């Protein structure tokens, strides 16, 4: 395997409703910042990959206009996944591994506020037997949460603690959307949104974008003082059918964590993409994190969840902790699909 590192990261603020800018106008400053930080021109980037969703945008080929933000001239080697940007990063990493590229740029963007996100996500389900019932994404997650609680995997209190922890952490994150100090007792006194989930258990709906630059060893050392080396990178997808999966654990994350070698060393920081509090707890368990790991210093998805970028942002936030020396080893996680169907694990190291 070639040594590849995350060398630059930029993101927009997560906003509940970015009505005044279209996707390109959100992306341009993010990609501009990435260029500025790295000092690279488009021509010095060997491969570009993006992640976005046509259904979030409400139009076919929505990613095509995203290319307008790149300045793809002269023409670029470029690809797109209909997935979170974290998987676009995976594709770019593969291109470096095979020797096709040395420097790659990746971006993800989404404006879920344009539609009714929990309802739009019902279109991800089996179109024959589930979508016609239009179960919204919050209800689907709530079915999983109850299973977890009744099996004793977690509790409403523990879930509230996760929400409070993440949103307190987010106080230090200028890009976060939901932040503050919350009392557990007060959170637990709130009514259910979809029992057993309360509002604080759910990530917000966020518009936003993020972008990352990765590079092979030689270039990485030129581009960053302390590159965040990718030492494990894998992803696994489970069958979607809720009935055939054990929803009280994340088996796909367990497999991915094993293959990525998460437990081969101490994990200082973990950035987890948990769209719901109980899911963040399931991922923590699946990654096998201990008390010494600081989880979601950025606040995680519970503080800001720009769909299609939020997973990529986790990797950027983890890399930031390597760059500034606050972590020597970090784990980033991304998810997609109902009830943590598909999960990606990326291990980053400073040495």
């Amino acid at each position: 395997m070639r040594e590849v590192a995350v060398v630059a990261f930029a993101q927009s603020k997560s906003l509940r409703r970015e009505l005044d800018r279209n996707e390109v106008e959100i992306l341009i400053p993010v990609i501009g910042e990435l260029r500025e930080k790295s000092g690279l021109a488009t021509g010095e980037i060997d491969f570009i990959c993006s992640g976005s969703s046509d259904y979030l945008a409400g139009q076919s080929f929505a990613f095509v206009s995203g290319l307008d933000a790149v300045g793809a001239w002269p023409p670029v080697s470029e690809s797109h996944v209909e997935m979170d940007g974290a998987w676009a990063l995976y594709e770019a990493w593969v291109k470096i591994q095979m020797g096709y590229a040395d420097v790659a740029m990746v971006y993800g963007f989404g404006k879920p506020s344009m539609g009714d996100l929990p309802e739009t996500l019902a279109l991800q389900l089996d179109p024959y037997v589930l979508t016609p019932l239009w179960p919204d994404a919050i209800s689907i997650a709530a079915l999983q949460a109850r299973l977890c609680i009744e099996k004793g995997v977690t509790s409403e209190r523990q879930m509230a603690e996760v929400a409070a922890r993440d949103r307190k952490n987010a106080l230090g994150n200028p890009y976060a959307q939901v932040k503050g100090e919350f009392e557990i007792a007060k959170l637990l006194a709130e009514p259910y949104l979809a029992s057993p989930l309360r509002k604080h258990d759910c990530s917000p709906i966020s518009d936003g974008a993020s972008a990352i630059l990765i590079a092979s060893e030689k270039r990485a050392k030129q581009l960053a003082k302390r590159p965040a080396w990718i030492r494990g990178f894998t992803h696994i997808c489970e069958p979607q059918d809720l009935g055939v999966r054990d929803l009280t654990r994340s088996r796909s994350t367990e497999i991915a964590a094993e293959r990525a070698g998460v437990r081969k060393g101490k994990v200082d920081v973990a950035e987890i993409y948990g769209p719901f509090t109980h899911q963040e707890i399931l991922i923590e368990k699946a990654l096998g994190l201990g008390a010494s790991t600081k989880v979601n210093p950025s606040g995680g998805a519970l503080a800001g969840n720009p769909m299609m970028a939020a997973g990529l942002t986790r990797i950027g936030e983890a890399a930031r902790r390597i760059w500034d020396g606050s972590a020597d080893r970090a784990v980033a996680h991304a998810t997609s699909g109902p009830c943590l169907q598909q999960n990606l694990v990326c291990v980053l190291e400073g040495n």
Partner: protein
Amino acid sequence: MPPPTERALTAPHTLQYTYKRSLGKVLSAFFTGLRDKKILGVRRKDGSVLVPPKEYDPDTAESLSEMVEVGPGGVVRSWTWVARPREKQPLQHPFAYALILLDGAATPLLHAVDAGSEAKMKTGMRVRARWAPQTEGAIRDIACFEPEEKK
């Protein structure tokens, strides 16, 4: 980049289409069953019955074809309460979405339960399919499930 200086123009935009889905043998049997007020699963290699059925085993991708009738009663495995139903959802008054393990099935089916109030919902409770007045071969031929009368 400076923050937006003026309000952008916005307008409603609707994506609307009625998809026509061909089904293949297993799903065709399932929906034909619903039209005839029967719930069918499909037998997996280990003998267990997958509900709703698929033409393949989700774990191994092996082809499946032997249809088996299940239900119409079953047990709630998990549930959540929908206090304010959305327009497209199966019931327009408060209801529960639930994972329901039908009698004879190894995997639960997701559907709506018309329980009247959240207090009446309980994991482990027995429910039974309530059929729509008109059945046409769709998942909503089951209007919803309802608590089974205690005997």
